[in-house]
């Protein structure tokens, strides 16, 4: 039940990662790391998630900023979406991520929301968000997958019990950029591929990411391999700002000297619990011309195996169209990418 009245909790405001990790280790499942707060505070206000301790990461300077590394860049998890969208380094070399960030929520939200938070955010399944005891909440049913359920926003793929989807705009962009995620915990640091960071519902239905209690996402690394590639991002949502994607698509493409597609990475969100990397499409387009025919084939391949629910079969043509556009338009002038899917960049 919606309550809009936060309960009390103990608040910690560490100034360095070491202290944060120590706190998270100490509080374990009763602790909660908060960054921009746009996901967390909703849960708290409705008293559906009620941690005893909240560890506010906002004061940890080392989690901020974008740095060049030997091979690519590293982005602090606390970097805001607005910072991402404006950073020259991102705009020049990894514009895909900037475009994705720019399509998240609204300018006001992007000013505080972080890249780490956008990756860790929970699903927006409205039944789950209402606080019902569904699979994802530890119960034994899915309210969104019944003969009469309202599931327009739900999954097409990889759904066995829970049919919720990832709502992230930056996640598919990072999968397309072959990024990796840096995780710190009391036991040290580990680095996982962005693709593997998100938890399939078949593996653990109650979590959206591989983060265990005590784990802290500290940074996102993007290799130089896709720097300056031909990018495409498009998001379709009911509203052009402050909305989650019905479907989005993010892709990076390289064209060889002969004008054929040398390589492509492409992923969609809004269609399953994790960003869906379209490896079939990637394989299919390799070596082909970047033209209508290839794009058409790619679109069809993208939606193969989709299993719609009562109200979401429109996502099949939508996803097909978006993938088609991504293949056809990747690497076209930046202006093309910017105007697709949303009105313009005038919201800055």
């Amino acid at each position: 039940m919606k309550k809009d009245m936060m309960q009390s909790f103990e608040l910690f405001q560490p100034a360095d990662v070491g202290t944060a990790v120590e706190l998270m280790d100490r509080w374990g499942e009763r602790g909660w790391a908060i960054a921009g707060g746009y996901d967390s505070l909703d849960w708290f206000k409705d008293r559906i998630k009620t941690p005893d301790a909240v560890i506010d990461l906002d004061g940890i300077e080392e989690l901020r900023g974008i740095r060049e590394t030997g091979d690519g860049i590293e982005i602090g998890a606390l970097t805001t979406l607005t910072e991402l969208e404006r950073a020259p380094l991102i705009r020049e070399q990894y514009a895909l991520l900037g475009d994705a960030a720019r399509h998240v929520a609204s300018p006001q939200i992007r000013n505080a929301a972080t890249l780490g938070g956008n990756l860790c955010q929970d699903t927006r399944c409205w039944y789950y968000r209402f606080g019902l005891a569904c699979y994802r909440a530890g119960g034994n049913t899915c309210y969104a997958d019944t003969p009469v359920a309202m599931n327009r926003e739900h999954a097409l793929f990889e759904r066995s019990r829970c049919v919720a989807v990832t709502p992230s705009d930056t996640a598919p962009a990072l999968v397309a950029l072959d990024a990796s995620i840096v995780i710190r915990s009391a036991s040290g640091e580990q680095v996982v591929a962005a693709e593997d960071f998100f938890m399939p519902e078949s593996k653990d239905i109650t979590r959206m990411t591989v983060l265990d209690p005590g784990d802290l996402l500290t940074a996102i690394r993007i290799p130089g391999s896709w720097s300056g590639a031909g990018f495409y991002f498009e998001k379709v949502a009911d509203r052009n700002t402050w909305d989650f994607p019905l479907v989005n698509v993010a892709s990076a493409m390289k064209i060889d000297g002969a004008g054929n597609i040398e390589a492509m990475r492409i992923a969609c969100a809004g269609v399953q619990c994790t960003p869906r990397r379209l490896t079939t499409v990637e394989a299919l387009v390799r070596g082909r011309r970047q033209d209508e025919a290839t794009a058409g084939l790619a679109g069809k391949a993208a939606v193969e195996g989709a299993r719609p629910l009562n109200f979401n079969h429109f996502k099949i043509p939508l996803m097909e169209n978006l993938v088609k556009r991504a293949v056809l338009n990747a690497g076209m002038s930046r202006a093309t990418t910017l105007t697709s899917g949303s009105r313009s960049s005038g919201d800055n």
Partner: protein
Amino acid sequence: MANRLIGHNFTPPDIRGKVTGQAKYAEDFRAEGMLFCRLLTSPMPHARVKSIDDSEALAMDGVVAVLTADEVPEVEAPGDPILTNTPHFIGEPILAVAAVSETIAHDAISKIKVEYQRLPFTVDPLQSLRPKGPDARVEGNVAIRGEGVKRIKWTDTDFKASVDGELPMGEPALEWSFGDIEEGFANAKVVLDETFVTASNSHHSMEPRSAMAYWDNGKCYLYGSCQSQSFVHPGLSRLIGIEPSELVYVAENCGGGFGSKGSGYPLQVIPVFMAKKTGRPVMMRISRAEEYFIGQARAGFQGRIKMGFRDDGRVLAVDLYIVQENGPNSGFGDWTSAASAVSLVYTPEAMRFRGVPVLTNTPPRTAQRGPGQNQIAIAVEPLLDKAARELGIDQFAVRRINSPGHDAPYGGKQGPITSSYLGEALDKGSERFNWSERLARSGERRGSKVIGVGIGQAYHSAGGNGFDGLLRLTPEGKLIIHTGVGNLGTYSYAGTSRIAAEVLKCDWENCVIEHGDSRRGLPWNLGQFGSNTSFTMTRTNFAAATDAVAKLKEIAALDLGGTPDDYDIGNETVFRRSNPSRRLTYAAAAQRAIELGGKFSGEEVAEDLNPLTKGAVKGMAGTGLIGVAKDNLEKNGTVPALAAGFIEIELDLETGKFEILDYLGVADCGTVIHPQGLAAQIKSGAVMGFGLATLERQIYDPAWGLPHSVGFYQAKPPSYLDVPREMDSDAVDQPDPQNPVGAKGIGEPLMGCAGAALVCAISDALGGHYFNRTPVVPDMIINAASGRPQSHKPLQVNTD
């Protein structure tokens, strides 16, 4: 003579406070010892409270009291209750807890054990109309305002009589007709018979309905969030159980109501009774999420309309049936208003209307901007285009030929109207928008994008009469205009107050508006709803100012000789026409009024004034020259506010998204009082219309009665990137003959005409695909464009 104020822009006095944040809303008030209360609300769509155990909550530190439905006056069913033991929708308040802080109050709520008995529920009117369908209330399933609850069930035969997807039409709750519809259909070149659905949607008032109250020396002080002021005062007093003179009601600013705060809604007296029980001031802050449950909603329709068109597009006959989703309580008359709107906007030669408002276990319904008129506009306007396509005429022609003239009859009773310039609005809009050029672009392709154009029209009644005007000229030479109309945020309380200054030829800088607090001497005025303010309040202020002018002349004649007719006014003086040096300033005249007493200073008042006005005058008697009068001006007929919208869009067939390239709204609002205010109304009304047409809706899980759209991001009012950066506006600017300054209201149809134009343009871009359902959301467009079936069943409501 040219107007000095009417038709000129000005800065309303409350703008500064709103821009700087100094304006106080209900939630901003504080009082010593104030408690906070929180509501325990129903987790079930329909239930009976069997028992409440609040012992654990009351034992908590800081918890002061629990207030249950048994301790507040019962509102007669099916009116909206204050608190209830029989919740009829999820989120309905059952009890309130007061504590020293909100957090403690809410902690206490989680300690209260309520035992419920589940009752059958429904979120679909047609399901309830089935022979053994569930009833939303134990007493029945249909409510008509003023007639209580009854039970109407249709027969299996009724349901079988219509083919799948067509609205069955069993026993109605109401029926009216005029003319011979069968003859009209027989003579028609094209007859459409269309079933349609319009979704319910929330009001999303930016300020939730918070309220604060305390009692002091036998008086009740209530700070509420309300569109209206004086009009709700007697009802609130009655609800509280005190005399109007014992209530101090403060509603100076209102952060939007859009109809949902037009009346003295019962929820706002919860802190009144809690304050009485605890002996302390009580603040009840309503949260954003709570507002979506208790903030009421627009009624949705399941409808069917048969329309017969002559070969030139003239509407010969209409047969309209509306099943209204009414929520669980008395609801609002959207269904009948929709029918009346059809009778006027399309002037059919014959028409029959039947309808039934069916109860559902979803939020209570109330007026939302253009209640009924705007739903029917977005449902029917595209059907005009469908007929026009079949007839081979254009969208403009099919509207223009049916435009109402001043003699157009209105509603089932075919009564008179005061004026109609809808045809002129269409003409003006067509020219300004270059309609024929736009039309030539219809269907133009650019990649996956296609151009669509549309015209929309809408109507709402726009004016009342019989209320009181009150003003005061002070010995300091100020004109104080007292207005009891309320301030829903459009600034019309100020715009209409300027009529008093216009009549009295006062410098606007010399005027003060008193409003928003019943202690400020406010007259009996109509509420600020129903697009009525511009018409109603210009009349009252005209009446009061006319009374003041007469008194000024009388005083001048008494002091300076001659008769009142020998005098005129100007430059804030009353002077002898034959010798303008024989004069009294308003300040001097006000001083003389005080000395003369009697009617001049408000010691005596006319008998026909409302008791509230008399009380207000009594409070200011002897402080200046009082101008006060009941609006006894002639009014014969319904005052129509009419509007036409013109739109061009570019729709992407691959994504279901569209961009509005251009929009023009044209108003028939009589004489324009405040051009900037009007332009803001035309454009912001359009934004709301676009939302109604393509974004906003309530969604319910029918198995659990569970609401989906309970946050801004789920209920989806349009964002700034969903509407054009620039929009255009215009007005016919022809005076209504039954208003002393020619004004009519306009707020509501400005939304409907824009929404209708947009739905029409989407269908136009799709080459004449008509959805017969609003809002038209992207998935519906994608499905249509890719030749796929829609996910919803044709008559399904509250659906994804």
